[in-house]
């Protein structure tokens, strides 16, 4: 039970107007603390669905999800919010920053829900923004900076609470190749520095090798789970 994440027989079926759509068909997955895992798979294979379940933003139709030793299904709404606040950090493809408040306020936002005093919040936010290389932009508004910079802000926001797990769903999807590689290097460095568990979804085989472990999804099932380097060879 030392795994930080353990999924057992996870199924997810979306109820749509056209009838039920099964997306995840009984996933089994265990991730140890401090691992760096990329998840790949064709479009529509269920990567985002899986990430949303891992991030406690959505609930599985059936199956068990153990996060940091707790059965997520047994948690009430308040405890779930606390888990999102203290255990998890989420980085989205579309950044999802609040456009009308400045970068340091955006990064400090998760600390509001941990009732950290304002001065302390801003101080921690600025420290993390410095870490992701945005020391000079702390007072800018999100729409005024580039996509790569916005994603760095989002990463800083995920880091500021010092979570156990960072989940990133296609963090490089909206970025050009060079910027994408910079972001992946940043994830790698953070993973090494702090030992935070890192789970990153990507489409791009060229960024997959930043991780040691790779999970490949197809039609809602894991078809490959192993070394990223081996998978590269298998592809080649």
């Amino acid at each position, binding site marked *: 039970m030392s795994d930080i994440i353990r999924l057992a027989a996870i199924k997810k079926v979306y109820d749509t107007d056209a009838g039920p759509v099964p997306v995840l068909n009984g996933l089994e997955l265990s991730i140890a603390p401090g691992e760096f895992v990329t998840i790949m798979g064709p479009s529509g294979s269920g990567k985002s669905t899986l990430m*949303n379940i891992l*991030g*406690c*933003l*959505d*609930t599985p139709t059936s199956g068990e999800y153990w996060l940091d030793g707790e059965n997520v299904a047994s948690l009430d*709404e*308040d405890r*779930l*919010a*606390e888990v*999102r*606040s*203290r255990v998890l*950090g*989420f980085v*989205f493809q579309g950044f*999802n*920053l*609040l456009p*009308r*408040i400045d970068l340091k*306020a955006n990064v400090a*936002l*998760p600390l*509001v*829900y*941990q*009732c950290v*005093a*304002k001065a302390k919040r801003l101080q921690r936010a600025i420290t993390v923004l410095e870490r992701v290389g945005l020391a000079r932009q702390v007072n800018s508004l999100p729409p005024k900076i580039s996509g790569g910079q916005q994603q760095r802000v989002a990463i800083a*926001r*995920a880091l500021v*609470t010092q979570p156990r797990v960072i989940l990133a769903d296609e963090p490089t999807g909206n970025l050009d190749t060079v910027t994408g590689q910079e972001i992946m290097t940043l994830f790698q460095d953070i993973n090494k520095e702090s030992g935070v568990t890192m789970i990153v979804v990507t489409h791009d085989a060229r960024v997959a090798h930043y991780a040691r472990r790779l999970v490949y999804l197809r039609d809602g099932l894991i078809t490959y789970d192993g070394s990223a380097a081996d998978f590269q060879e298998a592809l080649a």
Partner: protein
Amino acid sequence: MTLWLSMLGEALQAMSANKLRTFLTALGIIIGAGAVVLMVALGQGTQTAVTKSISALGSNLLIVRSGSAQQGGFRGGAGGLPTLKTSDAQALLDLTSLNTAAPVVQQGAQLVYGPNNWGTQIVGSTDAYLDIRDWTLQSGRPFTDTEMNSGMRVAILGQTVAEQLFGSADPIDQSVRIQKSPYQVIGVLAQKGQSMAGSDQDDTVLIPLVTAQRQLVGSQFKGTVSMIMAKANSAQQLASGEAQIADLLRQRHRIAEGADDDFSVTNMASIASTMAQITGMLSILLGSIAGISLLVGGIGIMNIMMVSVTERTREIGIRMAIGASRKTVLLQFLLEAVIITTTGGLIGILIGVGAALGVQRFGGIAVAITPQPILLAFGVSTLVGLFFGLYPARKASMMKPIEALRYQ
């Protein structure tokens, strides 16, 4: 407590980050609350002003004029031949429902005192006139019986006349000239202010009836009076007083059964109640306009809130994804709505009260500022703002975070 403070901070930050939205929301409430306060103040002010000026005429008042009621009170009174006599007024004193009666003769005339002169309405009547009109003397004394019976040239001045002729000097025992004859001033009336029609009731001079009949009114209609004012014993006896007067005068004027009266009796209480009805309707009308403003303000608020619902829903999704619980999100939005609506409501009330006072000061329209409409305006605007402020937040907080995040 720290959570409340944090959420208060977030609410204030969100408000200042969305200044236009905050302003438009508050504006709806400001207009609604301000309109309610102003309109109700106007309506109630008019109502009290009307009631006051009717009661200033005198309580339980009955007015008898020459001319038939069917001819119309105005034409009969103003243009018809005078049919009422001093003796008629004397006879009314014996009626059981009446407390007293005063014959009245009215004539415009010029008053002169030294270099000052002033045109005013001269009223010739008896001391009973003061009683009937609930009018007291500020200084001096009423007429004596001798002065009234022998038609001596004595006068009681209204406030305006006294001021115009004497300034701040004491008019008592001075001599003023009315149409060239000298009159001794024996008293000054207390101030009464404007009448319902806006005329100055203090612009008048009272002299004995007999004096007026001899000196002012043409000899053509000797012994006639312009009207008789009578006071019933009580409000309950107004109707019987009216009937008794009509019976007595028909008898005295020998009017055959079925023929038209050559006089009319007006019951001021019935006029008062009619006026009260009219001003009551005015109040309701103004109140409805105010209510509509409040509704329009509310719809404006709703519109703005609905427009921002997508943005807000996504914002709530983001906040929940990074650790906010439903309760904290709702708390933040609740605080935001409360702050906007209460400050908007307070500003609206201040503006409404200010506008009402301005209308009173510069428009000369009476207003009455009472707590009820203020509380109503505040209560309704707050409720409207709270409801429409919380509605999108409640909706969003009920969603799963991922649904709120994806909301289009």
